[in-house]
Structure formats: structure tokens, C-alpha cells
């Protein structure tokens, strides 16, 4: 049951930064979103809501893949509304295609530390260390196709750790994994957060296994943040609607 990785091998980061979306609007053809949200530093936010409600758009705006039509986005003290994705203290882990298919696990992870793809001796040590910390020792030279779905997401996590961004966004990162593997990954995520203290926004369709991790829940409905509160403080009606009312932490099996 106990995975091989040791939390002490995660390098401590500077901790998390607060994320603020003030009057942020974005729209396309017949569809619009409008967000107001203030996430405190180091929070773990579980973002839930029906499909098409705008959960991914929220993350895309924070990550800088989309630029809002109005409003400002702040991370820490900095206004990042216009900053390109790589100039933001943010790392996003996508649902799929997190890795370059033709590069091995080592290079894929290493790009988080050194975007030129050329690694110094000390960089190599750190990359090996981090891959070992997410449980991928001995698999450094595998191509993504030679890794399982869970291992691929571990490489993406290792890269995120090497970037050591104060904000981490995860867009249904474990959607493609089976339930046992998902619980394992949730545990890994919890250890990462304990070690590095980054601010996390996690989108999930199946909140049960991530709920124990969450310091806050953000409920997105029809392009708005309908509620944002610690799990226990959510308005009961909304919590019930999204299956969060006193559901056992390991419930909702078979999804």
C-alpha cells in the first residue's frame, strides 16, 4: 500500500500565491463567462460543475491561454492579465497530451527546469531526483507510449514540480485512470502539496476522491462561480446538487 516515494525528497518551494479574478469576462460566438474569484495562497480548490459550465475556461484564463475581454487577473501582487503563459508563475496539467510523444520521460520532465532541453550536470541530478520522487525511478528513458496512463501523468507532475510554480492548475488530470490509480494519484498530490504548499486549482468530474484534499470548493455553473467556500461551509442546497452533502470520502464508486 505504501508507495515507494518519500515526501522528504520533494524540494520545498516558495509556497503558494493568491490568485484573483476580478470582473473577468470572456466570450465566444454564443457563449460567455464572467468570473469573480479570490483564491488565498496555498489553497487547494476543487473546481466542480456540469460539463460546459466553464471550468476549463477558468483554468485557461488563469494559465494565460485565453485573455479576458474585461477585468484583471492577479497572481500574488502581479497583474498577469496580459502576460503570456510562460511568464506566469503557473503550471497547468492537461487532461491529455501532457508529454511530447517522441521525447523520453527524462527530457519531458526536464523541460520544466530548462526549456532549452539542454541539461547541466546539476540539472540532471535534480531531474532524476524528482522523477524518483514521483515513483518513476528506472523509467527515465521510456517514451510516453511505453508508460501507463498513470505513469504519464506522474511525468507531467514531475515536470510541474521542477518548474516549482507557486500556482498549479489541474484539468481533470486523472480522468483517464481507473479508480484505484486515481486514489493513488490523489495521495501523491496531497504529499506534493504538503511539501511545496503551492496554490492548486483542480477540475474534477468525480470529486469524491479529491474532496479530502480540498481546502475550498468552487462550483461553476453557466459560466459563473456559483459558490466558493471550504467544503463544510457550502450552502447545503448547492452541495446536495453536486453530490457533496456528507457523501463518504471513498463513495461514488463505480464511476
Amino acid at each position: 500500500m505504501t508507495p515507494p516515494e518519500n515526501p522528504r525528497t520533494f524540494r520545498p518551494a516558495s509556497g503558494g500565491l493568491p490568485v484573483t479574478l476580478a470582473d473577468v469576462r470572456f466570450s465566444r460566438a454564443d457563449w460567455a463567462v464572467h468570473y469573480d474569484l479570490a483564491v488565498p495562497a496555498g489553497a487547494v480548490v476543487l473546481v466542480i460543475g456540469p460539463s460546459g459550465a466553464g471550468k476549463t475556461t477558468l483554468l485557461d484564463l488563469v494559465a494565460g491561454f485565453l485573455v479576458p475581454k474585461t477585468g484583471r487577473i492577479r497572481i500574488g501582487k502581479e497583474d498577469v492579465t496580459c502576460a503570456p503563459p510562460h511568464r506566469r508563475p503557473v503550471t497547468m496539467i492537461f487532461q491529455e497530451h501532457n508529454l511530447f510523444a517522441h521525447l523520453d520521460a527524462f527530457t519531458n520532465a526536464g523541460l520544466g527546469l530548462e526549456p532549452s532541453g539542454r541539461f547541466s550536470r546539476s540539472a540532471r541530478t535534480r531531474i532524476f531526483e524528482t522523477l524518483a520522487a514521483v515513483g518513476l525511478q528506472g523509467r527515465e528513458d521510456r517514451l510516453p507510449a511505453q508508460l501507463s496512463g498513470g505513469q504519464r501523468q506522474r511525468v507531467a507532475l514531475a515536470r510541474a514540480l521542477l518548474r516549482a510554480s507557486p500556482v498549479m492548475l489541474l484539468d481533470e488530470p486523472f480522468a483517464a485512470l481507473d479508480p484505484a490509480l486515481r486514489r493513488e494519484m490523489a495521495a501523491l498530490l496531497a504529499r506534493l502539496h504538503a511539501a511545496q504548499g503551492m496554490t492548486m486549482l483542480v477540475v474534477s468530474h468525480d470529486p469524491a476522491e479529491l474532496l479530502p484534499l480540498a481546502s475550498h470548493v468552487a462550483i461553476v455553473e453557466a459560466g459563473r462561480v456559483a459558490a466558493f467556500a471550504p467544503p463544510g461551509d457550502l450552502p447545503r442546497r448547492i452541495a446536495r446538487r453536486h453530490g457533496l452533502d456528507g457523501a463518504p470520502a471513498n463513495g461514488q464508486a463505480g464511476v
Partner: protein
Amino acid sequence: MTCHAIVRVAGRRRLFRSREDRSLTKRCPEAQRPWTALAGIVLVLLLPLGAAAGLLLMAGADDMAADTVLPDAYVWRVVRFTLLQAALSTLLSVTLGMWVGHALFRQGHMAGHGLVTRLLLLPFALPQLVAVLGLLAVWGRHGWVNQLLQALGMQDGISLYGLPGILLAHVFYNAPLVARLVHVRLAAMPTEYLRLAAQLGIPRRAFWRLVTWPVLRGILPGAALLVFMLCAGSFTVVLVLGGGPGATTLEVAIYQSLRFDFAPARALILALLQMVLTGTLFLLLRRLAAWPDTMAGLSPVAPHPHAQEHGARLIDGAAILLLVALVALPLAGIMQAGLAADLARLLQETAVWQALVTSLAMAAAATMLALMACALLLTSMAAPRGGVRTGAWPSLAEAVASLVLVISPVILAAGWFVLLARTDLAQERTAAFWLVSGINALMSLPFVWRTLAPAWRDLRQRHGRLCAQLGLSLPTRWRLVILPGLAPALGPALAMSLALSLGDLGAVALLGSEEFRTLPLLIYQRLGSYRTADAAGLSLILLLMVTALMLATERLARKGDIRP
């Protein structure tokens, strides 16, 4: 209502920007027009613009202009023949191709199926001169068929020159193309159709009427238009096998009006007619019919319920045998005629070596230019922040990449020929080299684009956002992501471009000289001075060169393909 009108006007003014990056530019200054794509478009347009300037300027200064401004009887005869031979070629190619394509589909499990399918791919990469010499070896005055006829006591024999030869050559090229398109389309039908037919016991004719024909019908207009367009713009085949007053197409007439008479006004009229003709066909093809995907692969097929019926086997066997003979005989012919030539002497001639080196250098330069232009044009699909741009810019880039389908290499060469005719540059080796390379690059650009664009779009969709987030610099992006990702598509693109440039006669026929001569031009000159054996030997060398390059690039592609 007024509000809507304003929005619409604003939308029209910024025609080339998607909704998304319009919001970017308003708020954040970094978002830009795709300058690199624009550079690519300008680069590609340089050649046609120069050619247009040449034709227009010199036609204006042409003393004969007054007499030849109106298309005369000669021009109309040329137009009539162009349309006639294209229509007949299309009819023959589509009929035979459809018959064979269906046969290959129905007999998908016969012995030697793979071999036949691969044999029918050969004409795609075969330089036209090589094919023509192969046809001459079989059907020509001293060819196999006439020798056979003479042995049988028929002294008159048959002649390949004129319309029959042109049709035969066009069917040699286009019937396998149609067969491939039909075969691929039919093989793509759900396997369940065949299983259902077997289960329900649908008879042969009913299956054709109910299933095969409705599936097939969709691609026939596109295939026919494509073949018509290719035949209407055919140059090399008509130059060698036709060319007389009764058998000249627009393309060849342009060449002749400059090489023999130097009449730019006439060349301009012919070029305009040719562009109107191919332009109309091109638009028809894009609007009315689906563009046939000539690069699509074959999917595996379930056994056909009627494959074993006697009638079906007879019909299919006849079709396949006919086309195999049609394609294989000229290939065997060029081998035999080429080997019969004095290859040792040919390889000692300086002219041959010079032509070889010139051809290779020109093909390499053309391929490099085509890849460069294509890379620039591909950036039109890159939206800021790792996104994929859709809309007007990528469409414009694609249109520019396909330009040569309407403005043929002969027209481009004709324009530059008259532009340079009165200057010192006309005798300049370097000028001719780069012009011919450029025109050949433009000629392979549609194929290079069609091969690379889907791979590039796919790569961008997969990895664009990741690259943007990691902040990979442009060189790193090329080294780590783009080149490895494009490698599998790069092989076929390279092979196609090299094969086309090595085999082309259209551009070099006008722009070549004693100082600048490629292998195809040398072959044509030897043919012109009735040294057919030399021409056959040189064709064999050209064929071997093209084959070697194709195999090499195929290996390169396989090495680069590491995707599971």
C-alpha cells in the same frame, strides 16, 4: 438592429482576425498578424508576379500585337484540341480506373494483391519523359508491338504520335490514380456492409446498385475533374508525342510561340486562356466536388461476398490484367531500351555528367525552397498562446500554396523567359538555375503543403499550449517538437518534391540553355535529334536516380517515425 450592423461592419474591417485574438489585440499589445505567413505569401508570389510583368510588358511591346491580340483560328484549334484530348483522356482513365479500383476492392484477398496495388503507385513518381520513352519502346515505330505486327505480316504498323499516343500516356498516368481513389474509397466502407450482404445473400447486381455505386458516386466527379485538370495542363507528354499543328495543347503552344517565333502577345493570350481553363476547373473542383485525397492509405477489407463468383472473377481479372499490362509494359520497355543503349559511352560524356549534377543540385535547391516556403506558410495556422488559427489566413496560405495548379510551370517559365529575353541575365547560368529551382519549388508546393499541413495542425493541437507554457524558444521548439513531429510526413514530402523536380521538363524547356541543362532537357534534345537509344539510356539513369531518392527518403521517414 443598429447594434448588429455595427458589429458586422467592425467584423468585416478586420477580416483576417478571429474573434479571439481581436480581444487580445485590444487589451494586450503582443498579439500580431502572422508576419511570417505573410512573408511566405509574398515570397511565393514573387515568381508569378515577375512572370505576369514579363508577359504583360513584352506583349505590349510586341510588334505583332495588333495582329495577334484577338485569338485567331490557330488559337481556337489549340483550345479545341486541349479540351478534346482532356475529355477523352478523362473518359478513358475514369472508366478503366473505376473498373480496376472496384476489381481490386472486390478481389481484396487474391494472390498478388499487394504487388498489384504497389505497381499501380509507380506512375505517380515516374518522370513523364521516362514514361513516354517507355511507351515508345512498346508502341513506337520500332517498338515491340510493331515488331510483332510485322512478324505477322502487317507492314503498315501503328503510330504512337498524335492523339492516340497522348491518350495512351494520359491513361498510363491517370487510370492508376482513379483506380487508387476508387479502391481507397470502397475499402473505407464499413466492413459490416460486406458481412451484411453475405448474411442476407444480396446478389451481385443488387449489391452494386444498393451499396457500391452509392458509395462510389461521391468521389467520381472529383476524380474526373482532377484528371481533366491534369490532362488539360499536360506539357511533356504532348510536347513529345504531339506538337504538330493538329495535336498541340495550350501549354505546348505557349512554349512553341516563344521558342520558335518569340511572339509574347500570342503567348500571353494562350497563357490567359490556360489560366481561365484551369482556374475554372480548380474552382469547380473546390466548390462542387470533394477534393480527392490522393495520399490516403488503404484500410483492411473483409472478404467480399461475391469475390468467388465466376462472373465477378472474369470481370475483375480482365480489368486488373489490362491495367497491369498497361503500366508494366512501358516500365519493362524503358528497362529493355535503356539497357540496350550504350550506357558506358553515355557515362563518359561530359554533357551527361553536367546534366546529372545540374539536375541534382536544382532538385535539392527546389526542395529546400519548397520546404522553406511551406514552413513560412504553415505559421499561418499558429494563433498566439499556443492556439490553432482558423479562418482567412490559413485559407489564404493554402490558396497560395496551390497557386501552381492554376498558373502552370510553363506559364511561369514563359513569363520570366520574355522578361529576361532582352537582358544580359538571359544568358546567365545562375539566373536560370534559381528560376528553374523556384518554379519547381512552386510546382511541388501543393503536394508538400498537403502532406505537411495536417501533421503540423495535429502537432499544434497536441503540443501548442504545452510549448507556450514551458516557454520553449523558437529554435528549441523546432529541434525538440516540430522537426521530430513532422519527420514522418517530411519523408513523403521530400520524396515527392525531389521526384517532381528531377523529372520536370516544363520550366527548363524554356529557361534551359547550353550552359544550363538538366537531365530531362538533355533527354528531350537527344530525342529531338533522333538519338532515341541515347534518350532511352538517359531515361533509365533518371529512373534509377528517382527510385534511389524515393527509397532513401522512405527509409528516412521510417527512421523518423517513432510514434506507436
